[in-house]
């Protein structure tokens, strides 16, 4: 059985290699190959899952040691896999959702001449992500970690001819690099502390070292998680990442990649349990991000950016839960899975809408689309209900549990976190409803020619603004696209429910992430009801603003908060001013220094030597008699020296 694990990673890796090196001859069949391999690894995952279920809860973990990777002195890095319940959950999510998105992309990318490469990148991404979750040591995880970053770089920048896309890709990679820095430092700390960085030994011995060290490691891991999971303060790349094709957004920036941070923190639970301060930091980051994302989501008119905001906020929930320790890990993962379903579904829906609307992304150019694309409408709607946590749908179960856990974390912290989580839920309901209404209900604003609004640079005007305006003909997407949406919709409806049947999911994960029931000041019922109330409030608010009165085709200037939110709460501006400008100044200055000071010193010496010799040249008068004089002087000196030597 173990040998299958390598195959799990290998299949998509081979796919990537073949597709990227295959050349033109694969253009026609490439996408099928890619999809096939994704499905293959999904099937393998299922096989392993069945096998795992067959065994007792405790000895479910599988290990496979391929070969020793970097053996130098005490530094022993192996290429070895570990498949336990946590990894298995991720494997199924990644390969499952991944396969669906492969299928979806077949239709979505049909008209792109570089489709083969696209599938190659997708496979590469799957491989990297699987490596990330299957690694049995942090260094190998780091490989997957960066591999994911690379794949996302390639996919975000897939339409490289668009400068915005290229920039977004670069930004994503760089921000991720900052996070990676944290991870590598964490690994170094582990090596110096434990002499190894394999999960087993490190987590096993975590309790033996000082709390300070654990805190340090924990914070570094948190930094890494922030980078990959787009948490404040490293969240800025996620919005721009929407430049990539929609399936990419669905796969990477909703279902899988951004969840890597949650995986990391959950996986390193043992370390965080020993470092309360680190945990506090985690929950703070989570809480802040979930509100940040939610607020941003409210203001965006670009459907994908709105969804990106919601992703940010949902991941915030997970991080928050993961930061709560044993009472939260399981729910974090559970929310992660359900979120994987409905967020993928939502993104695919959005993609399908754009597909029907000539790649228009501005929701103010939508409206009343429900009768044109019913399937999309239904699936999107279900995803919507799921994400806002409508009772009975999967989002409800997972999110509700997190809010409970937040309250349960105890003391004022509990109240603050719980409050934040509740508030977040409300806002979520608001902006998702807003998306829903602006897209599928109301008047059909796309019939009128658009007038690009000045104060919204973020939304680039549709292609039709040039020349005669021909309204798009909204139509349902092909089977290859709708099928995945339907399947995902099923997931987003039922997954939560299934998981929660007498806490199946929690018990499934318990061997990996210890679980304990938090006892919250409020009863579960109270929390639930509170959640529902907040949720309804949010929906109502949204309906009052976007349902009752018609939505203006041109975004109103809006309050300061709105404008700030449109600009990602000015986070980008901050980066631009402080980091980019500052960096440019610094490099320019250094360039000058290098030229004038460092190199100048060298050239200066050269010049001075030249001048000196020029002066010495004067001695060469060319008058034989002065030469003779010098000779005589020299002779005199010699004689004198000799006399001295002989000790006169």
């Amino acid at each position: 059985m173990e040998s299958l694990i390598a195959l799990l990673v290998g299949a998509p890796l081979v796919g990537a290699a073949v597709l990227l090196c295959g050349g033109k001859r694969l253009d026609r069949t490439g996408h099928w190959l890619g999809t096939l391999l994704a499905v293959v690894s999904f099937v393998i995952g299922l096989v392993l899952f069945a096998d795992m279920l067959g065994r007792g809860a405790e000895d479910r973990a599988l290990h496979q040691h391929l070969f020793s990777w970097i053996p130098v002195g005490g530094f022993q890095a192996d290429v070895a896999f570990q498949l336990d319940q946590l990894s298995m959950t991720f494997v199924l999510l990644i390969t499952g959702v991944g396969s669906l998105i492969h299928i979806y992309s077949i239709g979505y990318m049909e008209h792109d001449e570089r489709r083969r490469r696209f599938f190659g990148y997708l496979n590469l991404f799957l491989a990297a992500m699987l490596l990330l979750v299957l690694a049995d040591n942090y260094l190998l995880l780091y490989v997957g970690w960066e591999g994911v970053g690379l794949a996302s770089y390639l996919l975000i920048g897939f339409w490289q001819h668009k400068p915005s896309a290229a920039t977004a890709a670069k930004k994503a990679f760089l921000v991720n690099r900052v996070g990676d820095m944290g991870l590598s430092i964490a690994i170094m700390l582990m090596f110096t502390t434990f002499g190894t960085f394999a999960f087993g030994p490190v987590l096993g011995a975590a309790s033996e070292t000082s709390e300070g060290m654990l805190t340090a490691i924990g914070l570094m891991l948190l930094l890494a998680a922030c980078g990959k999971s787009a948490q404040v303060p490293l969240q800025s790349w996620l919005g721009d990442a929407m430049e990539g094709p929609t399936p990419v957004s669905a796969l990477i920036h909703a279902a899988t990649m951004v969840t890597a941070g949650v995986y990391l923190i959950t996986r390193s639970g043992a370390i965080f349990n020993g470092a309360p301060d680190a945990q506090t930091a985690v929950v703070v980051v989570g809480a802040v991000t979930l509100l940040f994302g939610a607020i941003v989501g409210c203001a965006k008119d670009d459907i994908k950016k709105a969804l990106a905001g919601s992703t940010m906020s949902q991941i915030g929930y997970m991080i928050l839960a993961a930061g709560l320790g044993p009472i939260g890990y399981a729910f974090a993962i559970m929310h992660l899975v359900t979120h994987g379903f409905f967020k993928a579904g939502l993104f695919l829906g959005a993609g399908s809408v754009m597909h029907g609307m000539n790649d228009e992304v501005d929701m103010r150019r939508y409206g009343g689309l429900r009768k044109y694309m019913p399937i999309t409408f239904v699936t999107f709607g279900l995803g919507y209900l799921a994400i806002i946590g409508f009772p009975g749908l999967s989002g409800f179960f997972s999110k509700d549990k997190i809010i409970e856990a937040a309250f349960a974390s105890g003391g004022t912290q509990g109240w603050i976190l719980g409050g934040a989580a509740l508030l977040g839920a409300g806002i979520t309901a608001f902006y998702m409803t807003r998306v829903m209404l602006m897209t599928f209900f109301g008047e059909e604003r796309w019939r009128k020619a658009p007038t690009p609004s000045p104060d919204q640079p973020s939304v680039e005007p549709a292609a039709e603004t040039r020349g005669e305006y021909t309204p798009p003909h909204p139509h349902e997407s092909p089977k290859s696209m709708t099928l995945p949406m339907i399947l995902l919709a099923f997931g987003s409806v039922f997954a939560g429910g299934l998981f929660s049947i007498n806490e199946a999911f929690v018990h499934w994960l318990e061997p990996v992430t210890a679980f304990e029931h938090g006892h919250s000041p409020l009863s579960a019922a109270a929390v639930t009801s509170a959640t529902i109330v907040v949720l309804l409030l949010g929906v109502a608010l949204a309906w009052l603003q976007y349902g009752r009165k018609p939505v203006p085709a041109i975004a109103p200037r809006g309050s300061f908060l709105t404008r700030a939110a449109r600009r990602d709460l000015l986070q980008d501006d901050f980066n631009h001013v402080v980091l980019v400008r500052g960096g440019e100044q610094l490099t320019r200055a250094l360039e000058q220094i290098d030229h004038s000071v460092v190199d100048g010193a060298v050239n200066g010496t050269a010049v001075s030597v030249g001048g000196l010799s020029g002066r010495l040249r004067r001695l060469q008068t060319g008058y034989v008699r002065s030469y003779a004089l010098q000779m005589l002087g020299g002779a005199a000196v010699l004689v004198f020296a000799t006399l001295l030597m002989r000790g006169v």
Partner: protein
Amino acid sequence: MSSAVLAAAAATSMGEAVQFWVLGTVAVIGALATVLMRRAVHSALSLAGTMIILAVFYLANGAYFLGIVQIVVYTGAIMMLFLFVVMLVGVTAADSLKETLKGQRWLAAAAGLGFGILLIAGLGNASVTHFNGLGEANAGGNVQGLAALIFTKYVFAFELTGALLITAAVGAMVLTHKERTERAKTQRELAEQRVREGTQVVPLPAPGVYARHNAVDVPGLLPDGTPSELTVNPTLRKRGQIRDVSGESLAELAALERRSSEWLERGEDPARGEQARERGEEATR
């Protein structure tokens, strides 16, 4: 010569002392003269004198062969060579002793003095007292002794000097030899050239106009009595060896006229006399 001298004994005789002090002084004077004389010829001559004295000293030191060679080669050959060259180029070479290089003279004096003092100091504390003369070295005769050394110990050096001399000779020829590139001009051509260039078509005028003064160093006079530059050799002029006699000759001319006029009791012609007198005075002036 006496065997004592031939031995060039360790101790020096009284005679040698006297000889040394006298001739040594002369030699030094000669050397100084060589350096300080304004004319190259004089330098050459005084140097020759010094060399001869040195030859004597060689003899006194039992280097008979060298002494002779010194006289023959140096004084006889090399110095003559010098004189020839002086004759070729030296006429103009009476260079002024004015120094052109800044500070050269003082520095030279300083360096020279310092060097000399150092040398002499060195010799001074060399404390050489005992000379083991050339008694046995010259026993078989000085020349034989030298020959034995030259053709055994120093034979290679000797061969080399031979080569050196040949090279020197060839070199000197190469340097001084002027390649004649074009055919020598005939009289006719020269004449034509002169006419063409229009400078001094006729032969140069002869120096001296009166029988008393037909020496080459006396310039001829032009009809108006002024001396003509063309009539004397430029070398003499350069050396400033032109005897300018025009003044007195004019004075005599004036006197002659006066006497003739008196003799003929011709009417007084003061103008001419005045004229002549003035001319004479100005010439003598």
